[in-house]
């Protein structure tokens, strides 16, 4: 009889222990939910519709319309191929982020808009972006085409003459990446010090 009691007590303890384990697992799930990934860039709230634009794709000459890319996370970057540091660094970060996305990679579209159409010939631009990722899109328009887009996105572009240098001039330009969500809204800007992990995280958040 004593033995039966002891068995009963051990079973009861075991059940209680299992309940505690279940509670811990539930709590872990709750905590995981509380720390859901957030956007790591500078976020606009409420997000406004991203200003639409259309510029020729240097890969085929056909115009790319921003609004036709709905359903994707679109990264828009304004730069130039002679840029010594920020542009290659940013494109490299975006390329690494895209690789981190695995099966979602094709839903991250990167648009590189040249702010230096005089020097960035279509061939030069195409080769430049493909060196980072075969699917990056390079757009090139005339200065007249660019002006309303730069105004809409508040992009600053300023030529700085470099007398005596081979490049002739450098360009100061806004270096943020403008991020458009799958609904076509300008959700955030990503700064140049963001990591590939930051960018991949934000794309995942936007595609959820």
């Amino acid at each position, binding site marked *: 009889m004593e033995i039966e009691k002891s068995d009963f007590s051990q079973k009861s*303890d075991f059940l209680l222990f299992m309940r505690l384990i279940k509670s811990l697992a539930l709590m*872990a799930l709750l905590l995981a939910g509380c720390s859901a990934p*957030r956007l790591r860039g*500078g976020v*606009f*709230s409420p997000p406004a519709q991203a200003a639409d634009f259309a510029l020729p794709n240097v890969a085929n000459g056909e115009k790319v319309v921003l609004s036709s890319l709905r359903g994707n996370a679109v990264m828009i970057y304004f730069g130039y191929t002679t840029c010594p540091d920020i542009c290659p660094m940013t494109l490299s970060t975006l390329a690494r982020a895209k690789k981190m996305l695995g099966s979602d990679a094709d839903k991250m579209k990167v648009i590189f808009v040249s702010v230096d159409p005089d020097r960035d010939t279509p061939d030069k631009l195409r080769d430049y972006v493909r060196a980072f990722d075969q699917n990056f899109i390079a757009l090139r328009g005339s200065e007249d085409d660019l002006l309303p887009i730069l105004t809409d*996105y508040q992009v600053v572009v300023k030529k700085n003459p470099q007398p005596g240098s081979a490049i002739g001039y450098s360009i100061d330009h*806004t270096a*943020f990446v403008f991020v458009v969500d799958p609904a076509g809204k300008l959700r955030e800007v990503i700064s140049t010090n963001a990591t590939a992990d930051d960018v991949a995280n934000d794309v995942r958040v936007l595609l959820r």
Partner: protein
Amino acid sequence: MKKLLLLAGLFLLMALAAGLALLQPPDPSARMAVFIIPEGAAARESRGFPAANLPKAITLTLGAMDTLSIRNEDGFVARVGPFKLEPGQSFTQQYDRPGTYELICTTIYHVENMQITVIENPDPLKRFLAGLQK
């Protein structure tokens, strides 16, 4: 078995405490630096008066996951750094790395230079909790 139960109970309590700490930041007011571009800012500046009460420099503490928020309550578009804030729109940035960041904030008439310094939080517990939150 009783020892095991005691240990599990203790762990449960600790997890609960950590959960509560995560859900309720110790001092919400210290974690969000909010700046407002007030209604009429652009109009006042056009008349030569200071408009937005934006400081030249602010310091955020990294470990506490401090957040910068700028809200445009004016009826005109305001420019913050390289982007614009529509009337009624907010810009929020949580800085994850220490450093100094420059923001140029302008209404349509005036330029405000704003520098944000993000420093490390020396409190290891806060750093740990912030890491869990991320």
